[in-house]
């Protein structure tokens, strides 16, 4: 058999292989014109081979990389293949299709570069599956894979079905209002209003008129009827945030609504019925307030029919990468930016922080990084200075030492908390000399509450 025949047979075989694979493949000549375009490429792009052949590849492929980061150009210039680079293409109906691209150089029989080949994989299915997986970790605007939060997520459908009063506890910034909204949105009341009142923000008399409303003439300046939050939340959900802050006098009035579902607007002559579901939220320890006589026991039991306790971020640090990704997506959308991720070092530094402001603080850190970041990746210089300080040490260590130092830092923080920031007691508990503890506090940038700060002598 002649060489020509063998070569022709091989070409037919290669064509058959290219036609049968599910990845799109096209080749270009040295003028960037398309010389082959397989069946999968037709399917993914929605462009027929007839229309594609002979055209400039960027007019056919229309990928986000064509103009500024063409993978094929890079490969032809460096003679190095690129594997699985992520981007998107825009098809003829304006859909953005996520793909991954791989490239290779084409050579003629003499070994000279005569063009390039690009292989691309449709990632829509992968993205859909990823979204489904992420949905398991998401309820409303809350996102978590930590066991404690997963337990709450599993309870939510049952909690939402009920109309019983709900108490949400958790430190500041843990997402109490988000959880209340999630409960409302999952309930049969979802079409009705969700009204939130911050009880700590208003003095007693204002809070009363805000909650119950007033009638015309109730006081000077009341020249018309004003509905209160109970009326506005009719058949919906009323969130009483910072419930631990209200006065004993106000607690009595609230108790009556919760017991009898009746209230009287200021200046009103007859009672009105409250039909809203009540969710109360607090970052305070209500049983302690009851013991101190600052919170009525009967009101506590009335609001504490179902209780959900949100863990602080320190107890769900495994959520930090997920939350960072979530906030990056959120701010990309809000600010029309294209930041892809945070660098591994940034994630490592974020994992070592104490997060007293919890998720709200983490969100603020990412929002700040968005202001400063001009590239696709959030890096350490985009974090606040105090975060950068903690990475200086981190950066120059090998992985084992990093882990050791993280652990040591955590241990010292925990011991300080247990010992109410008494440094002598902390040093004793840790088996360290007092001056060694001071040195380590400085080394790990551990700050003490202002009232506890005494410079070492």
């Amino acid at each position, binding site marked *: 058999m002649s060489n020509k025949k063998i070569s022709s047979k091989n070409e037919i075989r290669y064509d058959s292989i290219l036609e049968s694979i599910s990845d799109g493949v096209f080749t270009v000549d040295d003028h960037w014109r398309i010389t082959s375009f397989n069946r999968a490429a037709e399917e993914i792009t929605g462009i027929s081979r007839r229309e594609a052949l002979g055209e400039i590849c960027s*007019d056919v492929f229309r990928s986000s990389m*064509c103009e500024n980061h063409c993978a094929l150009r890079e490969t032809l210039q460096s003679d190095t293949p690129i594997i699985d680079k992520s981007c998107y293409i825009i098809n003829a109906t304006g859909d953005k299709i996520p793909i991954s691209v791989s490239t290779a150089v084409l050579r003629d029989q003499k070994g000279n570069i005569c063009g390039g080949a690009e292989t691309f994989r449709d990632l829509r299915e992968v993205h859909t599956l990823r979204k489904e997986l992420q949905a398991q970790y998401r309820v409303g605007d809350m996102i978590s894979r930590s066991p404690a939060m997963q337990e709450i997520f599993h309870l939510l459908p049952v909690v939402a079905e009920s109309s019983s009063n709900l108490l949400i506890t958790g430190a500041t910034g843990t997402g109490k209002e988000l959880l209340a909204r999630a409960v409302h949105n999952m309930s049969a009341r979802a079409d009705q209003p969700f009204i939130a009142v911050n009880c700590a923000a208003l003095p007693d008399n204002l809070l009363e008129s805000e909650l119950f409303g007033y009638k015309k003439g109730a006081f000077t300046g009341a020249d018309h009827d004003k509905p209160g939050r109970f009326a506005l939340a009719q058949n919906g959900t009323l969130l009483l945030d910072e419930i631990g802050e209200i006065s004993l006098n106000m607690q009595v009035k609230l108790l009556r609504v919760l017991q009898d579902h009746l209230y009287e607007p200021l200046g009103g002559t007859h009672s009105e019925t409250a039909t809203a579901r009540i969710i109360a939220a607090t970052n305070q320890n209500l049983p302690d307030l009851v013991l101190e006589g600052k919170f009525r026991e009967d009101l506590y039991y009335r609001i504490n029919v179902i209780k959900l306790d949100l863990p602080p971020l320190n107890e769900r640090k495994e959520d930090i990468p997920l939350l960072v990704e979530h906030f990056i997506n959120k701010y990309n959308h809000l600010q029309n930016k294209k930041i892809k991720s945070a660098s591994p070092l940034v994630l490592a530094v974020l994992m070592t922080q104490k997060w007293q402001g919890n998720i709200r603080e983490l969100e603020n850190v990412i929002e700040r990084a968005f202001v400063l970041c001009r590239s696709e990746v959030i890096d350490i210089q985009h974090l606040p200075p105090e975060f950068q300080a903690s990475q200086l040490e981190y950066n120059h260590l090998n992985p084992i030492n990093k882990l050791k130092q993280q652990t040591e830092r955590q241990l010292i923080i925990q011991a300080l908390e247990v010992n109410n920031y008494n440094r002598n007691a902390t040093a004793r508990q840790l088996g360290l000399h007092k001056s060694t503890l001071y040195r380590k506090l400085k080394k790990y940038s551990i700050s003490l509450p202002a009232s506890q700060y005494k410079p070492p002598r």
Partner: protein
Amino acid sequence: MLIAIPEWNQRISPVFDEALHFKFYRIQEGIICEVADQELPGLLAGKQLEFLLLAGVDILICGAISRYLQREAELNGISVIPFLAGETDVVINEWLSVGWQHGRHCMPGCGRRQCGQDAGCRSGKRNRGK
């Protein structure tokens, strides 16, 4: 009337959503009276549409554009003539002199529904020469 065309290598940029360089044509009575080149400012990185709105563009002639951005542009009063390909000056001059001709400058695979030959063509003829 101000027309913007995202440009790359003297051709219409393949993807508006990623374009970094724009060519602006001011048209009066069907004639180009002013041409300007402008890079997308760093402060507006990734905000091509905001840039055009700030510039006061009336018509955008472009290559591929995501459906979302096209709709946003149109909601903000910019007529979009999408999915065109070819040399920027050739496309604009041809449009001004003879209007869209069937099949010319259409991106491959772009049905008549999408590209300048159909919807864009009508808006082009309507606006041409203002």
